[in-house]
């Protein structure tokens, strides 16, 4: 089917400064039928790369009711392979058709030598990698004809090669490429626990004006005899420590559109809506202070 920009009347608009939820296939019908009071929706871009069928049909019907954000997991923007033009073309087709207010990718890589690991793999934080990422983000933004946001990932290892802290790398990338930052507060917490840095210091190091979206999710703890590690599983409610860190983030960055992500063992829609309400309450507190 030819992509038709049916939404041009609405336009991409903007994401409201409220909480949204990740839209998953399990909830298509419930979202259409009940139209839950969430501010916006986010989908994984690649889930709509098909030429037709149910996913695109549902997204088109649901998009008529909510502002949308496209969140990519497979572009592998940090890879040293040539930038994947076919992937970007598919993303661009999707952008034209659905007019999302935000488009985001990850500070990571997922493929090399033509082989994909289909995971968000950590980058070494070096000057060389920074130079590479700046060029790649600029290239992607040019091809897509718009700004993208880059999200900090959860990580389970640090390279000996790394010379910069992640927050410095991310802020420099945004500064030099003109991309925005999608700050995943849960990922900051997970990586801080895994690598022993101060999560609050991370927040303080990110310039106020760069953050355009925040992610919240749940993680799991894997325990071994030589220690424990937090895994970013997106299969849990947001934990109390992450809510506390989120409060700090809202204090610093203001009322930033916030997404509740839940990707595996997806619960009923009402559970996600309730998590979004919690985030909204924290955003409201900030509003009350500002007033």
């Amino acid at each position, binding site marked *: 089917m030819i992509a038709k920009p049916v939404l041009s009347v609405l336009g991409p608009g903007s994401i409201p400064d409220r909480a949204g939820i990740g839209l998953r296939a399990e909830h298509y019908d419930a979202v259409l039928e009940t139209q839950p009071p969430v501010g916006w929706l986010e989908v994984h871009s690649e889930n709509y790369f098909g030429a037709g*069928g149910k996913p695109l049909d549902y997204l088109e019907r649901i998009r008529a009711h909510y502002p949308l954000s496209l969140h990519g997991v497979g572009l592998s923007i940090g890879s040293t392979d040539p930038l994947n033009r076919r*992937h970007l073309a598919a993303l661009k087709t999707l952008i034209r058709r659905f007019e999302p207010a935000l488009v985001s990718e990850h500070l990571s890589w997922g493929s090399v030598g033509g082989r994909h690991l289909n995971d968000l793999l950590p980058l070494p934080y070096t000057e060389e990698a920074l130079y590479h990422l700046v060029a790649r983000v600029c290239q992607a933004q040019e091809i897509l004809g718009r700004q993208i946001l880059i999200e900090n990932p959860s990580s389970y290892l640090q390279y000996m090669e790394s010379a910069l802290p992640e927050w410095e790398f991310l802020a420099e990338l945004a500064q030099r490429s003109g991309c925005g930052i999608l700050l995943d507060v849960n990922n900051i917490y997970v990586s801080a626990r895994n690598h022993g840095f101060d999560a609050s210091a991370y927040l303080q190091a990110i310039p106020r004006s760069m953050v355009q979206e925040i992610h919240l999710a749940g993680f799991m703890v894997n325990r071994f005899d030589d220690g424990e590690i937090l895994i970013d599983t997106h299969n849990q409610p947001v934990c109390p420590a992450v809510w506390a860190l989120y409060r700090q983030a809202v204090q610093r960055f203001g009322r930033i559109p916030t997404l509740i992500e839940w990707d595996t063992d997806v619960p009923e829609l009402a559970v996600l809506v309730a998590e979004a309400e919690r985030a909204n309450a924290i955003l409201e507190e900030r509003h009350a202070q500002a007033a």
Partner: protein
Amino acid sequence: MLKLRELQLGFAAAVLDDEQNGFEQHIRAAGLSGARRLQIYRNNTLLSLTGALKAVYPVVCRLVGDGFFEYASAQYIARHPSRSGDLHEFGEFFATFLQAFAPAAEQVYLPDVARLEWTYHQVFHAAGHPPLDLVALAQVPAEQQGELHFQLHPAARLLESVFPILRIWQVNQDDYAGDPSVDLTAGGLKLLAFRRENLEIEFQTLEAGEFSLLCALTEDYSFAIACERALAAQPGFNLPACFSRHIVQGVLVAFHLQDA
């Protein structure tokens, strides 16, 4: 100190090819060892690729059991690594892989069941298409009709097997509650997988003539040749009824006259 390129190649090799390539020397061991940290990424990759295969091949998984499926998946991932950031493209060669996979040799029908599931997956994500222009078709002069070439809907696929794979597929659906027995000697079948206007997918078993007709049209033979083939495959076959049925249900969506 490794350049970014070498670091990525070393990481991918450690995850996909060789656990013993010494890559952990590039990882800071703080609490957990570098090897343990790398193992988390190995598990994540295996889990996500195996999950993608399970999502496309749920019936194969049910037929062989989770443990066997995960074992086969690991072998498949090593031999046919993912080539796309879109996981929906992963698993294309699974049927061919199963055909040569010795541990599954006893379940001779397994590759064909996998083929059926990949077909379903393709039909699910295929493009839509508006129906055939009947007015324009009616205007084609009778003497030119044999020279028409027809196009099938992008979400229509043909498939055949010497095994009763449709029955196997049906009794292994989660919501199937009837008699689960399958007679493997029941013989093969010719199938049309088709996504209807309401986006629901159905399998239609076809007679030999009907199958030959649609196969020939898919291969871009003229209508005249397709009809000849259909009648050769099944003498006495009711061609006009079959043809109009596939026009009406939207399997045939476009036509053109071949340039002389």
